[in-house]
């Protein structure tokens, strides 16, 4: 059975129309059809969080959502959110704390962290750990990831933004 379905959606601000097989999950569609390699594929059953993307303003698991379900939706990936500057201070903080390590989990971690900062701006270190528990880091870089997120939470509460250490030319 290869009956394709036509979908129209917005991805990182661009309107996309495509034909997809119903069985194709969203992250495969983003990676294989749209060449957006930021969302990663890890476990493909919802355990690891590497495939995290935003759909209609909320983070979701890209492997537990079908491309056909995204018809009519607004999808944002790490590529679009980086370009818009929405994650700039979080990304800067991750760099300062060397919270990337191999980088495989980073796009998912950043999107999950951004939603935490939005929804629970007064989170404690323990609450950050609980929230981030949905995203696996295979280099076990959790400690520095939690520190990076805490710095952004504290800066935001003071109304500050984390600025780059080295000024760009």
């Amino acid at each position, binding site marked *: 059975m290869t009956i394709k379905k036509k979908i129209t959606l917005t991805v990182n601000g661009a309107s996309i129309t495509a034909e997809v*097989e*119903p*069985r194709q*999950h969203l992250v495969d569609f983003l990676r294989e059809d749209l060449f957006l390699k930021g969302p990663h594929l890890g476990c493909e059953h919802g355990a690891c969080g590497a495939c995290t993307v935003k759909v209609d303003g909320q983070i979701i698991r890209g492997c*537990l959502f*079908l491309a056909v379900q995204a018809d009519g939706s607004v999808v944002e990936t790490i590529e679009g959110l980086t370009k818009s500057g929405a994650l700039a201070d979080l990304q800067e903080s991750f760099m300062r704390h060397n919270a990337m390590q191999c980088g495989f989990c980073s796009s998912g971690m950043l999107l999950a962290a951004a*939603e935490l900062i939005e929804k629970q701006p007064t989170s404690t270190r323990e609450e950050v750990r609980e929230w981030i528990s*949905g995203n696996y880091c295979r280099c076990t870089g959790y400690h520095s990831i939690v520190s990076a997120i805490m710095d952004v939470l504290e800066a935001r509460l003071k109304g500050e933004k984390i600025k780059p250490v080295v000024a760009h030319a």
Partner: protein
Amino acid sequence: MKAAAFDYIKPTVLAEALSLLAEAGDDGQLIAGGQTLLATLNMRLSEPAILIDITDINELKGISLVGNQLRIGALVTHTEIEDSELVAKHAPLLKAAAPHIAHRAIRNLGTWGGSLAYGDPAAEWPACSLTLNATMIIVGPGGERRISAQDFFIDLYTTSLEPDEILVATEIPVADNNQVFYFHELARRHGDYAIAGLAAVAQKQGNVLSDYALTFFSVASTPLMAMKTQALVNDKVLTPEVIASAVAAARAEIDAIADITNSVETKQHLIGVLLERGLKHLAAQAIN
């Protein structure tokens, strides 16, 4: 892993979904949030020929107050429950339980009705609906029927929902100011399936508690209410002696089964650990 091929259809009204479901028979599978289903499809544990996506059906949405009942539509997501002021006020047990359900990215899609209809004994909502004496509102070819949570969960992943029926909503009696509650689960990683969990409510009567509902989950093939233990602690001051006898009673009463990593003995032990913590927590609320 990738799912096997299937067709996909997205009805917009309940009547259409019911007729599609009847037409598809065993080949059809409803999808709402899909947070369990997609994993089983990806692993090819399930290979339906057609997915019927019910997420556009307005009749299944929304949280509202209907008289003295809190009505939660089947399509309400775990996040909506977590963030709802109506839930926080009228069913605070659900608000306390919500953050334990997987992780935010999953809670953003996974639904109340999906969790209940799937009937996973390790899941939070079946246990909470039993504890809060929820009524399931079900629609099928013959019209609407209502069934209590106590009669709804039959066995492992088995509910009284017929294959041609759809769970529309549930109604939960609203909590009054005298209701006290406790929710906790023990898991290896926050958000993972519980090794054992306890959902509990009781009513404050002076400095004692009555009308207990103590529901253990992830210890047997359905969530289980500890009826004998409830009777034992009812209307008693929760002294250390009473709590100790309740712990022994619950371990004797709940017939735990092992899972892939935890033995019966571990589960029985954790039932007591959870109950002791829960009763101490409830006792503290009783004197406030």
